[in-house]
């Protein structure tokens, strides 16, 4: 074996010797691109919806670019990216396939709609039928993009921590929070933060409270689910290998710093401050997705005899 492959093999053997084998396929190596992809398309969908609502070209453009990058990250996650077109085949049962369609719809819709805003003299007008079709496609794609990620994790039966039915709602909320943050950045870029940002700040606070409540419910659900693997994942996040990401990345950077800045304690609200709020919020969202995906551990394969559960401890393969 080459040294890389040898290392991976040794890691696998070591993982098999543990009670709760951490999932590495979707968080390490090329798997990191899946986390990145889910993060990017979530923010992209949110930014696009905010851009449409406020008719903000920068947010729309950011949504389009981030979605494109998110799509590339998804491709980088595949071991056989050249076969990506086959992923359109199983929408009846597969959320990955549905997500692929969502991203495709979004990109088609945004490619149709954006020229009407940016170059209306050259292309069609923004109130034309063609532009409306683009808007419908892009909104449908955005909604699918926001929702599909949570369902992908919920369908992963081997990872008890992800099986929560709240996961899709949490991911939708995170996408909206990311969209609000992206719109704040856009306003800051345009120097309109103070005048146009207060509504967004209120929305950001509302969706952040929603995320916190959903997160607490999810943690509580995992702790009371009776699944030891889910409890182990929660422990990993709150007091284990991912605690640093949780306390520094999610709580400090993603929550306390934006709230601190928002309260105007350091300085009066300004475009720079709005940009900082947007950036820290988005960074917190990334750490949130990173830690919850990384926290996934496989439920141990154990022997059950009728209703008599026999707890066992795995030693080696």
């Amino acid at each position, binding site marked *: 074996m080459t040294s890389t492959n040898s290392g991976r093999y040794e890691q696998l053997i070591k993982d098999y010797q543990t009670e709760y084998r951490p999932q590495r396929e979707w968080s390490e190596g090329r*798997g990191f691109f899946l986390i990145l992809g889910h993060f990017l398309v979530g923010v992209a969908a949110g930014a696009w919806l905010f851009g449409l609502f406020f008719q903000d070209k920068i947010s729309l453009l950011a949504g389009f670019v981030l979605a494109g990058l998110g799509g590339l990250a998804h491709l980088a996650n595949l*071991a056989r990216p050249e*076969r990506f077109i086959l992923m359109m085949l199983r929408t009846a049962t597969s959320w*990955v396939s549905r997500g692929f369609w969502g991203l495709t719809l979004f990109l088609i819709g945004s490619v149709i709609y954006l020229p009407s805003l940016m170059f209306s003299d050259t292309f069609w007008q923004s109130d034309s039928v063609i532009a409306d079709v683009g808007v419908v496609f892009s909104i449908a794609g955005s909604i699918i993009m926001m929702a599909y990620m949570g369902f992908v994790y919920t369908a992963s039966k081997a990872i008890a921590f992800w099986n929560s039915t709240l996961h899709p709602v949490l991911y939708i909320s995170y996408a909206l929070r990311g969209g609000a943050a992206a719109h704040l950045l856009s306003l800051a870029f345009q120097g309109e933060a103070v005048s146009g940002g207060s509504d967004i700040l209120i929305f950001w606070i509302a969706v952040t409270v929603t995320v916190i409540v959903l997160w607490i419910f999810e943690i509580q659900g995992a702790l009371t689910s009776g699944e030891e693997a889910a409890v182990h994942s929660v422990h990993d996040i709150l007091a284990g290998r991912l605690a640093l990401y949780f306390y520094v990345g999610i709580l400090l950077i993603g929550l306390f710093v934006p709230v601190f800045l928002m309260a105007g304690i350091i300085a009066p609200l300004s475009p720079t401050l709005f940009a900082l709020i947007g950036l820290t919020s988005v960074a917190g969202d990334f750490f949130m997705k990173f830690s919850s995906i990384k926290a996934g551990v496989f439920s141990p394969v154990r022997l059950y005899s009728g209703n008599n559960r026999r707890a066992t*401890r795995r030693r080696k393969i």
Partner: protein
Amino acid sequence: MRWGMVIDLKRCIGCYGCQLSCKAENGTPPGVFFARVHKQEEGQYPTAQTTFLPVLCNHCDDPPCVDVCPTGASFVWEDDGIVDIDADKCVGCRSCMMACPYSQRFLNDDPQNYYGDQGATPYEQARVERHQTGVVMKCNFCRDRVRNGQDPACVENCPTIARYFGDLDNPNSEVSRLIRERSGFPLHPEKGTNPNVYYLPA
């Protein structure tokens, strides 16, 4: 017809014969184990004991790995219920690995061999030709052998005859009889996958 397997935990001595014969039959690369044997400790001194739990793909009637596959690469053979993978369709997204409650799917990532710098042996070279890289692999009950009237390699090579293979749809088959008479049970029925691999209590 619905192929299934019964593993008698009273007979299993944890010799890893199934694991090795599977590797020999399928030529799986390092890190890929279609047939694993979990060695486990139960209880506490002075009543502690070691048990063995052979695990393989359970060829479920409701396989979550097939549902989540975005390309249709994971599928169920309609004529015998075996869950299989069409390597030509697999994109290597690993969704199925996250969905399998038995952790019985493996990504054949890069060409690998067991002997480091010595390079691949002729046997391994032949094996590499049989398997695509960048795709997920799994047990298919040695379907080629079964279609030729043979048992899967792990069944045929078990020295203690702890493994039985047969048609679960036939109430008179040996596997059906063993499950009925010796209270055979599947792994993790709470996952709702309706496995076709059963265990007889030790």
